[in-house]
């Protein structure tokens, strides 16, 4: 097995801030975020692209950070769940909707869910239930049965939902 490890210097925008770091080329984005930046929001639920709990947004796209190499975010923009709340900790409407609609139980899937939903809403400001379910298919949750997450996403979308809090 070839065990040569190459360190590479990369620069990227992380949650609105320009950062640079020397990182080994075999490290995943998830490992770098957690181990080097101490951003523990993205979780490893499987480590191989099947659960979505490691989802972050790279250049407006929701990706599984466990599958992406850290070096490949060089020059790009990365947003993690820690990057959503406002400067004084005001929740993003999507986060607020997750809270209000009971979309959080154990919470292990939650950061990944929120990042996937964020990207979904960016792409489609007013998705229907089917579209939400299809768009979120890569994120697993074992606690909620999904309905309350769908409601929360609907609630934070442009059209809002019956609870009237809306976007």
């Amino acid at each position, binding site marked *: 097995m070839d065990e040569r490890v190459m360190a590479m210097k990369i620069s990227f925008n992380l949650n609105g801030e320009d950062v640079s770091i020397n990182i080994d080329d075999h490290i995943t984005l998830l490992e770098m975020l957690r181990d080097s930046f101490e951003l523990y929001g993205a979780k490893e*639920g499987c480590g191989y692209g099947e659960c979505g709990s490691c989802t972050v947004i790279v250049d407006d796209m929701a990706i599984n950070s466990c599958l992406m190499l850290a070096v490949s975010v060089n020059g790009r923009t990365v947003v993690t769940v820690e990057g959503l*709340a406002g400067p004084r900790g005001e929740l993003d409407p999507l986060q607020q909707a997750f809270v209000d609609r009971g979309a959080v*139980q*154990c919470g292990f899937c939650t950061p990944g869910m929120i990042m996937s939903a964020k990207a979904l809403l960016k792409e489609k400001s007013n998705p229907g239930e089917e579209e939400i379910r299809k768009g979120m298919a890569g994120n697993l949750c074992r606690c*909620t*049965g999904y309905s309350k997450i769908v409601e929360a996403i609907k609630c934070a979308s442009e059209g809002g939902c019956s609870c009237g809090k809306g976007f």
Partner: protein
Amino acid sequence: MAKVFEPTIKAMEFINIGKRVPKLDAWDKVQGKTMYIHDVKLPRMLHGKILWSKYPHARIVSIDTSKAEQLPGVRAVITGYNTPEIRCGFIKDNPVLKKDKVRQYRDEVAAVAADTLEIAEKAVKLIDVAYEELPAVFDPEEAMQEGAPLIHEDKGSNVLKLPWKMICGDVEEGRKQADYIVEETFRLPFVTHCCLGTSGCVAQFDAKGNLTVYSPTQIRFLAHKDFQEAMKALGLKDKTVKVIQTAIGGGFGSKLDTYPFEFITIMLAYYSGRAVKLVYTREEEFFASPGRQPVRAKISQGCTREGKLTFRDIEMILDNGAYTSWGATTPSVMMMPISSLYQVPNIRYVAKCVHTNNIYSTAMRGYGNPQATFAIESQIDTLAEKAGFDPWQFRMINRNRPGEVTPQKFEITSCGMKECLEAVKEKLQWDEKRGKSNGRGVGIASLIHVGGGARIYKSDGCGTILKLDDFGKASLLSSASDMGQGSDTILAMIVAEELGLNVEDVTVIMKDTDLEIWDAGAHASRSTFVAGNSALYAARKAKEEILEFAATMLKEPKENLYLRDRKVFSCNNPEATMDIDKLLRAAHFRTNGRQIVVSEFYDPPTVMLDREMKGNFSAAYTYGVHGVEVEVDQETGQIKILKYIIAMDVGRALNPMAVEGQLEGGGAMGLGYSLMEELHLEKGKLLNGNFLDYKILTFPDMPNIDSVIVETIDEKGPFGAKGIGEPPLVGSAPAIANAVWDAVGVRIRSLPITPEKIVAALEEKQRSNS
């Protein structure tokens, strides 16, 4: 009086109870601020890794760890040969590091602690183990045969010596009285919890040799006891143990026992002198964390011409796997639906748990009830039809009623079975939809579960310490565990209600065995009822003290005073009022001042099952009914769920949003169990240990669940509530099997109900028709 939930006049009077209160920790969770075991990092912490066995049954000839020990960065290498023996499980048949032989693929043979996880992974690969394969047995019925390989030679038999036998009335007499009898065999698969957060722990010794374990356990006090016992083996009997519970990334029963990996982590920390963290990969979570036990159930039931059940006779064989954890005690809970789901006068139940070289089993949400209820409720439909009854009508005839004492001596207090049946019938449009045999069908299944704790240990208690500060805020140190179900919020609501505070005035702390009183753990759907009553009685004590002092301050009789909106009021004198924070400060800052700190240890009024396995072991019982409408594609066997209704008698819905969360989440887990989940083992080896091959429901698969909350206001529950954590998954499988029968006329007697099984059954049906 039982009724379908809508806020009643009484409920309107509550300030907090009955409101849709968001989960207290949701704010942190949506920001990624919550610390799970994966996120715990201590100074100079090492990483642990386990070497798993390569055979299902083999003698360990030798273990050579020398290469691993020489790898730079390796700090400890342990095996069963260089450590004292520690055994786990309730009959202590599971040595945490295996010596002499391995009995299943996932056996722990050695372990390493190293500076990084990478080094630890490399090091375990450098350990050489020489094995000598032994004949193995994977089928419990074969394992029961004379001459089958013995999994534990010292036990003399593969059949566990457990008292799983219950007789009520006279089954032979019941058979004689029956005009109709049905006898069938059902099979239930091996499935697993699939918590999104994998298992793990961190162990650390301080300079005096006292141990701290960080763990997402559901049983921090029982774990505390197990770890304290292990300290004895390490020669540290006089040292203390502290368990700190991290956020739990899903429990569902998986964290209801202590497992070898935890003791291994403790030993690695001990021998390395450093903090050690060991967290399972998803692959390990699949093969190394025990699941729900597979069951074969032979069942017969009979009824009279009038549709009254006369007997129920069940024999079961459970594949216990190689070691014994709580899975082996699930028959004690299966007895509950067997004896007490519907009125059945004559019952016989015998279960055998059998060792095999398969992966062992533990507790999982429902704790045996889903297996037993699948058999009972599938057969109820068949029996009803044979006796010429509409299955809904048949259930109404035999339903349980409030105030009855069941053959197992359960004292039923509240019982909303009738209301649940009626609600589901209406929502499902049962009369219009049933019996069309056109590929669409409807099915129902009822259930019973413990709703008021379960006295499986001598104590079913739970402690609370409640402390009020000078600012009118309360700290609630509860011994309960929140796995995401929302007991933190429920407890805060209860205390706030009683003390006239807002929910945000109550800080709930449940995490540290040094701070809190004992509790039996988050099992048996007991938190709302037992921890809830504990919190309620603590709050009442605090209230007494507050009002006593307020009476002297306001010069009003105590009986006239009440707490509301963070104030004390008098019902006679509108002038006599005082803010609670002011009152608390006045009580504190004075000569002979006092602060209000109270404690409560609540143990429900129940008994343990006696030698005949009878007795009122729960203070209340929860009832529910599942109803589904399915569409079955007769070509492909695909099932589409068109409608899914769960009606649950919850006593009182303290937080309807949390109740729905349990119904929806439990329903999803139940649907997975019914339709797709199964761990496939080939000669003891797991073949589908990943989310691609072991499917759980995803967003597109999951229908919306129509939750019907029935309130019966239980006399013993906190504000009338009963537990509902587990039951929402219990009725899924039989309701679907019954709907499939209604849709296409085939009876699937094994789970999961896959398209292949349906196609095969349809072909079989066609063959026998022609």
